[in-house]
Structures are given as C-alpha cells and as structure tokens.
C-alpha cells in the first residue's frame, strides 16, 4: 500500500518482491497462525487532508487552559518564567533541532562549544567546580546524585528531607532499589527540615543528606547547617536548587554542597505540560571521576587551536561498563542549549532581575491573597517565589472556579501530603503583573466567601 510516509513506491515494492520470489506482501506473512491474524481492516478514521488535520488539531489545542490564555500561578517544580525570543529563534535551526548525537569533534565543534559554555555557566551559578552536559530532569538528576554519593562513600543510606519534591523522591527510590540503597525521610514539621532530628538520622551509614532550597513548599532551608551535619558524619551534602533563583540566592556550592542538582526548566525551557525538562548536575572537582553523564572539555588540536571534545569518557558505562556510576549515556542537548541562550541573553544583571522581580511579586501576592477571610500563609517561614496558602474551602474547587476566570490559581497539595489537604501551593514569577495578582486576590476572596 502506497503512503507518502513510506519511502518505497508500489513499483519498487513489486520489484523487491520479484527478487525474493514472493507474489505479494501477504505471501511473507503466511507463517503467522490464522488465529493470531487480524482478519479485518484496522478501525481507523480515514486519513484527513492536511487542512482538515490542522483545523482538527487547532480545535483540540483551543480546549487547553495554558499560560498564554491564563495567568499562571502554578509551580511545584515547573515555572512560568519568560522565554526570551532569541531562544525560539535559535533552537529551531535544523543544525540544533534535528541533529542526532552530534558529539564527534570533527563535525560538531559548534555544538560541543555551546555545551561547554552551558557547563561553565551552570558551574558558576551553582558555585561548583564542574557541571555535566545535563541529565533528563530534576528528578533523575537527584537520583543520579544518590547513586554517585553511594559510589563515592561506599555507604548504603541516603537521608532525604521531606521538603524535597515528592516526585523527585519517588524517582530516587526507583533508582536506589536495584543497588539496595536505603532511603530515610527527614521530617519537615513546619515548612522546613527539622535539622536537629535529621542529625540523628545521619551517621556512618549515610552516603548523603539531601535538602532542597527553596523546598517544595517554597520555604528557604538552612543549607549551611545541613552541610555541617552531613560532613561531620563523613557524608556528602546534595542540594536540590532551582538555577533561576541563583541570581539572588546564594550558590549552594558556597554553602557547602558537594553535589548540586535541580530542574533547569525555568532557564528558558517552555513548561510544555511537564517536559522535556533539563536536569542540572554539578559537583566538586574531587568527585569528577564519579560524575555521571556527558562532559565536554576544552583542549587544543594538533595545530594548537582551541577545540572541544567529550572528555573523561572512561567514567561512562560504554567504557567502564558494570563499574560505572550510572548507565546514562545521553543528555538533553536542545534544552541545555535553550538554557545557554537564556543565560547569555539575560546575563548577570538580567538573571538577578528575574529573581528580584519573582520574589518581590510573590511577597506582594502573599500579602494580597491572605487578605481574603480565612486565607492564611500555612508556614511562617521565609520563602522565595512560592508559598502554601491555607484555604477555608477545598483548594481543588477554588482552582476549578478560578480556571473559568482565566486564572491558574496554584497546585493543591492534597496529592502530595494528606496533612496539607486544605492547602494550595502558589508560585509567582517575574511574568505576573500587579493587575493579574490583584485579579487573583479578588477572585479568591469571592471563591472562599
């Protein structure tokens, strides 16, 4: 059957069948038992003409409430930060968009150079010595950090704060199951990790202590003290951080982190309903040989000119095999490129502005929203661009009501913690206007009345 998506013409198919001595394609399938064969055509709608198809897809898309049609106050790991136009302009270039595994130094100096610059900027932002070319997303980055801590310390326990994104914790549990690494929870009784209690859990069996700052509830954690606790026990400190915030917040590397991981989606990668995302991974120099993932290094060619190559490949499983820290042998190059362009476009000053605006607007929003009767801040802790609101009515109902008014009010927390069933997680980025926040406050007051 001819199809414009199958390269062989009917004539070519006939010719090939002739060469192998078969009368038809059916003849090639005679060995499949009749009862395993479908004896009718597939129940598919007929093919649409391109114009009809486009009309159909547009109609489907129009049913979405997205950040273009609604004011987005949803966060919980995916944020509506602005994507500057140079990004869309550059990443649609074929050399970037459709290149598959472009890492041969002979053919891909441009690509390798952008990844080197990405690594450099991430290392600078996080205050670490070396960053890799990216992992899939924040969750898998954390999981890889857990495996790396185990490889480095040869210890079998990881203590994770319950302030770490619950989805990241589940992915980490999946990765740790095979190697038999035990995960232990450090409690977050009132918005931040109880470090005194965590100290009791961290001991000679602990490979790493993991904290997230700001944590899943938006609250800032005491990373420096967490570092002391981890190091006193000979364990590593892993910090989960949102790189967009690091123009304002102190680099985790300066606070004692041994490994920094996180979700880089806020760095110019569209939310896209959950992906593709950007796993940030950075570490101290003495740990580089146990780092997972691709690493691009700078070197010189035989004529002494500067060039870039994948380096330290003996870490990776295609050489080190069963002894490698991880089996990952890829990265999200296109998303890393978006982040590179984002950071280069905004520069030092621009990134600081994004952080300043996000936190200023979040604090303004918290003030306005808590004016509604019965609405209060759930945690009395310093926060950055996200906070949990305690509502007098079902957060799910409030979200549904406000969505009809063009507002994506936040993420209800019941699914993550039953004890917070009356809470809504609200995020505010530099994109939100005063008018949007005021409209949100008005609509919220009506919805909970």
């Amino acid at each position, binding site marked *: 059957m001819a199809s414009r998506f199958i390269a062989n013409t009917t004539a070519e198919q006939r010719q090939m069948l002739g060469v192998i001595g078969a009368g038809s394609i059916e003849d090639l399938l005679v060995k499949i038992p009749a009862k395993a064969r479908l004896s009718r055509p597939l129940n598919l709608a007929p093919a649409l003409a391109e114009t009809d198809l486009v009309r159909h897809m547009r109609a489907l898309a129009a049913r979405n409430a997205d950040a273009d049609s609604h004011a987005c106050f949803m966060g919980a790991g995916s944020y509506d930060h602005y994507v500057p136009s140079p990004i869309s302009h550059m990443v649609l270039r074929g050399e970037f968009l459709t290149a598959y595994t472009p890492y041969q130094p002979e053919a891909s100096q441009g690509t390798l150079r952008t990844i080197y610059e990405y690594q450099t900027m991430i290392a600078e932002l996080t205050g670490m010595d070396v960053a890799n070319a990216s992992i899939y997303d924040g969750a898998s980055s954390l999981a890889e950090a857990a495996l790396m801590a185990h490889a480095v310390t040869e210890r079998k326990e990881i203590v994770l704060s319950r302030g770490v994104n619950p989805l990241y914790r589940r992915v980490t549990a999946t990765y740790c199951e095979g190697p038999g690494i035990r995960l232990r929870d450090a409690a977050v009784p009132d918005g931040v990790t109880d470090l005194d209690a965590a100290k009791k859990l961290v001991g000679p069996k602990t490979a790493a202590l993991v904290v997230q700052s700001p944590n899943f509830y938006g609250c800032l954690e005491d990373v420096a003290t967490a570092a002391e606790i981890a190091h006193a026990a000979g364990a590593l400190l892993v910090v989960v951080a949102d790189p967009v915030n690091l123009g304002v917040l102190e680099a985790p590397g300066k606070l004692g982190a041994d490994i920094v991981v996180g979700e880089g989606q806020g760095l110019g990668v569209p939310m896209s309903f959950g992906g593709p995302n950007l796993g940030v991974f950075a570490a101290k120099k003495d740990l580089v*040989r146990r780092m997972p993932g691709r690493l691009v290094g700078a070197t010189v060619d035989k004529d002494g000119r500067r060039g870039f190559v994948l380096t330290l490949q*003996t870490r990776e499983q295609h*050489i*080190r095999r069963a*002894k490698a820290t991880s089996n990952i042998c890829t990265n999200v190059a296109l998303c890393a490129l978006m982040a590179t362009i984002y950071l280069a476009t905004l520069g030092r000053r621009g990134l600081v502005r994004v952080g300043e605006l996000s936190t200023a607007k979040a604090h303004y929003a918290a003030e306005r929203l808590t004016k509604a009767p019965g609405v209060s801040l759930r945690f009395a802790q310093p926060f950055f661009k996200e906070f949990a609101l305690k509502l007098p009515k079902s957060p799910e109902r409030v979200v549904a009501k406000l969505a009809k008014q063009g507002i994506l009010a936040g993420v209800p927390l019941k699914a993550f913690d039953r004890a917070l069933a009356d809470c809504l997680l609200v995020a505010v980025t530099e994109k939100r206007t005063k008018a949007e926040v005021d409209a949100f406050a008005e609509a919220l007051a009506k919805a909970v009345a």
Partner: protein
Amino acid sequence: MANIPKELRYTREHEWAKQEGDRVRVGITDYAQEQLGDVVFVELPKVGAKVTAAKAFGVVESVKAVSDLFAPVSGEVVEANGELTKKPETVNQEPYGKGWMIVIKPSNKADWDQLLTAQQYEDFLKQAAH
C-alpha cells in the same frame, strides 16, 4: 617485544611482583602500559587495606580504557605510590621503577609460588598474540 625483567614474577593480568625482604612490591608490566596507552589516573587502596591474590585492588585508567589491577599475593597494603596521583604518566615512563603501585605485606607465602616466572610470562604473551 616488551621488556620483561628476569628477576621479577608476573600474573596473567600483567602485574609484576618483586620480593623485597618480607615485602612484595607491585606494578603493571611494560606490555600492559603499552596496551593501555597514556595513563591518566590510578586508583589505589589506602595503606592498611587488605588485598586478596587474583582479586582486584585498584583501577588504572588510560584515555581510552579502564582496567582493574589484580593483586599477585594476598596480604596488607603497607605502601601506596602517592606520586601516581600527580604524575600518572610515570606508569608509562617507568613501569618497573618509579611507576610502582603498592607494596604488600604478604599473608600467605604459598601465593608467591603461583606466580609466573619471566620466561613463563614471555611465553604467555607470545601465546596471547596468536
């Protein structure tokens, strides 16, 4: 043909062993360093660690490969060559001299007799080449 000093003993994994009183000094052979290419990193055990004959005690990394290092005899590590951290290329330059890796205090004298003589190692290499 690679250099195979007559006074040393050898393993099939291309380590050499040198008797020094009641201690055994260990490294990798000229053949091994040639095969590996430029050595960029050597991971050695800490002083005091126990090693077991024919089991891995460390790792040697070149630009293109990673290889386990196998202990010729069982015992305790009494010295580890710290110079190799700074200058791993010493393994290529002087595999039998400054490129030594560890010194073991053997726990079982019988292990020594299991090692290949220089002639046996040479024959082994000739065979492996076929």
